[in-house]
């Protein structure tokens, strides 16, 4: 039976990213700093979040590209650790996140007498992304629909509603929680559990699995 559309309906979107090379590259930490200072915010976004939707081998040790480069190319483990611990969700916006990256790099540059450089083919390549968002025609009308439909959602949908949402929503929250919250506080514990998922040191598959487990457990406990 077709449900009537209401204001509380949650339209599931899907998205896909395409990476765009900027042509900018850096061989030294100072060069990385200089470019990171002026590149577009979408470039910062890509190097912190883009890995979730692009080809990569899981590297949970270094969840952002700056840290990964510092470790694998610059071989500066201390810097890599400091960059890796930056949690992009702690920052109001991408400008604040950029400032933190620059701060960590500046601190390291102050400590180094002779900042090292990398081989020509180990440079840091600055990339940004474009996002295409489209409607899946899937609509959720009640919280249980989330459980029933999460398997039908692509990783693009998970990215859009769980990761990208933080950039769009004024409260920096994910779309699932915002929607569940709109049911007059009836599902606050579910909202809290979903909010507690750490989207950073993980993969989209794992995020999808975690959401599913949380919703399943919530309804099991309710029965």
């Amino acid at each position: 039976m077709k449900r009537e559309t209401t204001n509380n309906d949650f339209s599931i979107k899907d998205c896909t990213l395409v990476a765009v090379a900027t042509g900018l590259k850096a061989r030294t930490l100072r060069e990385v700093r200089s470019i990171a200072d002026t590149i577009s915010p979408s470039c910062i976004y890509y190097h912190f979040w883009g890995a979730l939707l692009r080809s990569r081998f899981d590297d949970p040790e270094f969840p952002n590209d700056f840290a990964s480069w510092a470790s694998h190319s610059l071989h500066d483990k201390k810097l890599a650790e400091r960059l890796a611990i930056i949690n992009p969700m702690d920052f109001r916006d991408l400008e604040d996140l950029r400032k933190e990256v620059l701060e960590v790099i500046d601190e390291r540059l102050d400590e180094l007498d002779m900042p090292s450089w990398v081989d020509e083919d180990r440079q840091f390549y600055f990339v940004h992304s474009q996002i295409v968002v489209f409607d899946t025609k899937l609509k959720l009308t009640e919280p249980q629909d989330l459980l029933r439909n999460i398997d039908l959602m692509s990783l693009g949908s998970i990215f859009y509603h769980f990761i990208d949402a933080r950039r769009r929503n004024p409260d920096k929250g994910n779309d699932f929680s915002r929607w569940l919250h709109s049911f007059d506080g009836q599902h606050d514990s579910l909202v809290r559990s979903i909010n507690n998922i750490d989207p950073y040191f993980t993969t989209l598959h794992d995020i999808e699995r975690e959401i599913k487990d949380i919703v399943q457990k919530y309804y099991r406990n309710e029965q």
Partner: protein
Amino acid sequence: MTPSLEQYRSIVGDAVIQHLMQLARHLRGLKIVHVNSTSEGGGVAEILQCLLPLKKSLGLDVSWEVTSGDREFYECTKKFHNALQGNKVAINNAMLSHYEKINSINYERLKDTLENADIVFIHDPQPAPLLRFCADRKGRWFWRCHIDASHPYRPVWKYLRDFVTLYDASIWSLPSFAQNLPHPMYVVPPSIDPLSPKNIDLDSSDLKDVYKTWHLDESRPIITQISRFDRFKDPLGVIESYKLAKKFSPLQLVLAGSGANDDPEGAEVLEEVELARDNDPDIHIIVLPPDAHRKINALQRVSNIILQKSLREGFGLTVTEALWKQKAVIGGDTGGIRIQVFNHHTGFLVNSPEGAALRIRYLLKHRDILENMGNKAKEFVRENFLITRHLREYLTLIISIMHNSKERIILQA
């Protein structure tokens, strides 16, 4: 027979296919044309052979045109290829004039198709000048570079850049390959088709045939490099690695590759490889016709370890193919091999014949590790390097260019 979407669904899952169908809906009615210089042999033709039917099955109006050329033309474009990979080459004005003339002839033949296309993908340097002749184009044109052009020989790049700059966008396999151009430079790694004859599961009779045909001994390990006979693939380095490793372990080496119509240098390299073989009966040099996909598939599957010891590599689709067949890969620390081979996970990156020999010995001694790596390798490819991901990115960048490459594009239902 062309595989159906349903067959891909069984490999990549419902959500991936659904995702493609929804994306493709926004591109119905557009005329999309791919142009390259060879219909068989080499990675580009292989990608197009599987990409085209898949696009069609999503309801897209897509066609593939192949340009033609003579020996002189291909000699020139082979030099372009080598130059983009960093080799200093000598190309005189007569060769360049001939290159442009052949392109003008090809353009006249393809004029109607190209003028009326909404989206045109021109693959690699061979047909790059076509856009210059197309004064009345209505569509958006992409130049797709499959080559590692991170350190091009500048005089040649300077010449080619004048053609490429005219395009609405370019597509590169890795960010490091992209040259500065005044248009969006998309990054799209290539992919393999799990249902193509080169990658599809085979039964044991196919594998037995391989042992029999090339007199391979089932009881001794086989290491294999599948590639064109090209200096950048370092076949001589592979033979050296094999010789070093064989001192410690019984071993057979297979060097197999097909020739391609646009690769006149191959015969010369093959001769050098035969010399280096030095009549060793355990070195099997196999030259295959361009359509011997099933045989290559079987050779990869009977191998214990796959090598791709390239000195320069565009992306290294043979690596992807091997990983998909649950084989650990020992690969040159270069280009696209770096985003596929992860030390201790999917194989090893090496920088010398000695390094390759060391890893061969290690993996043959630790068969459990070899097997684990193989399992991990297959899942890695399933997630990242199958044709469905490649297709998704192509569809996305068509949408992107049609929306003037805005950072965020919201499609209406």
